[in-house]
């Protein structure tokens, strides 16, 4: 029966209300995780704080397993859940540009908004830059249109391209995540920087 918005044909106002409420949950979870702190986020890339990978992979796995079970019991029609379209060139080039933005800015677009909301002035600069970046993108889109749409593959699923069932791929991903969590815990000890992490508590 789910997604509920299509099953019950939500009117516009209800879609907007649910979007706002889901956003509140999103911002609350990000802030509680400590993602309102750029030095905590950056710790992921210097090893002194690996909260990012723990939160990120735990969240992806919870949503993945949850949606697989709901689909198995016929409660969620996964064919009606949006699957990202794969533009090979744009995904890689865009990803690398985002990697640079992450290290220079110390936030991603979601965590930047969340940090701004609790008064981080550096996050306000990041969000202002984000608006400038969105403007720059829309203005330069005609110039990069060819690259942006190159090598389009459609909404491909990773398990299908590997020839695995969704359940088996999920199991492999969970095992990989547990291994990464273990490495992350070791890294925090090896690359510990108490002079930074004590500031962040």
């Amino acid at each position, binding site marked *: 029966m789910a997604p509920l918005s299509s099953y019950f044909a939500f009117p516009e106002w209800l879609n907007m209300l649910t979007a706002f409420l889901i*956003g509140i949950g*999103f911002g609350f979870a990000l802030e509680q995780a400590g993602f309102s702190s750029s030095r905590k986020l950056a710790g992921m890339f210097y090893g002194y704080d690996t*909260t990012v990978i723990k939160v990120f992979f735990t969240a992806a796995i919870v949503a993945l397993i949850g949606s697989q079970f709901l689909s198995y019991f016929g409660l969620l029609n996964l064919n009606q859940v949006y699957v990202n379209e794969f533009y090979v060139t744009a995904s890689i080039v865009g990803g690398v540009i985002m990697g640079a933005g992450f290290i220079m800015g110390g936030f991603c677009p979601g965590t930047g908004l969340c940090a701004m909301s609790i008064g981080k002035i550096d996050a306000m600069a990041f969000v202002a830059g984000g608006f400038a*970046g969105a403007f720059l993108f829309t203005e330069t889109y005609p110039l990069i249109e060819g690259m942006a749409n190159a090598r389009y593959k459609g909404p491909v699923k990773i398990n299908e391209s590997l020839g695995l069932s969704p359940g088996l791929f999920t199991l492999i991903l969970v095992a990989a995540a547990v291994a990464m969590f273990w490495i992350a815990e070791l890294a925090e000890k090896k690359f510990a920087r108490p002079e930074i992490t004590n500031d962040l508590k």
Partner: protein
Amino acid sequence: MKRSYMNPYLAGILLGIVLLTAMVVSGRGLGASGGYKYCVVSIVGAVDPPHVENSEYYSKYFENGKKPLTNWLTLEIFGVVAGGFISGAVSGRLKLKVEKSPKISVTRRLIFAFLGGVLFVYGGQLARGCTSGAALSGMAVLSLAGFVTMIAIFGSAYVFAWIFRKNWI
């Protein structure tokens, strides 16, 4: 009283439940960079309507009387700001400050933060999603694009981290 952050695995479960809720209720994942775009498109639409009409890219956001401000992602990012504020308020973390390494100046931090914002949202638009819309939500629906974008972001960030290490450590 300032309270400590939530255990990362517990926070991950909470975030995962929010993402699952979005999938079950709205049939989609979370997002952020798209919300920036809808805000900008709607500002440009208000300030310079002829520019929007003549641009193939802008005009599609106003087709059939659509308004970019009443969009799922726009409302969701307004919610992110409200939710972050609520969390900061209950945990005693509301404070105006520039967070930075003591080794760099405030100006340097703010310039880099601004440039990082420009690049992140630009790259996010190109890849059709950022860390939330492509990487996190994409992985939850087993999207190949999500996994590739996630590896491109985190993989390249380790290279850039070495280049810009003086800003952080």
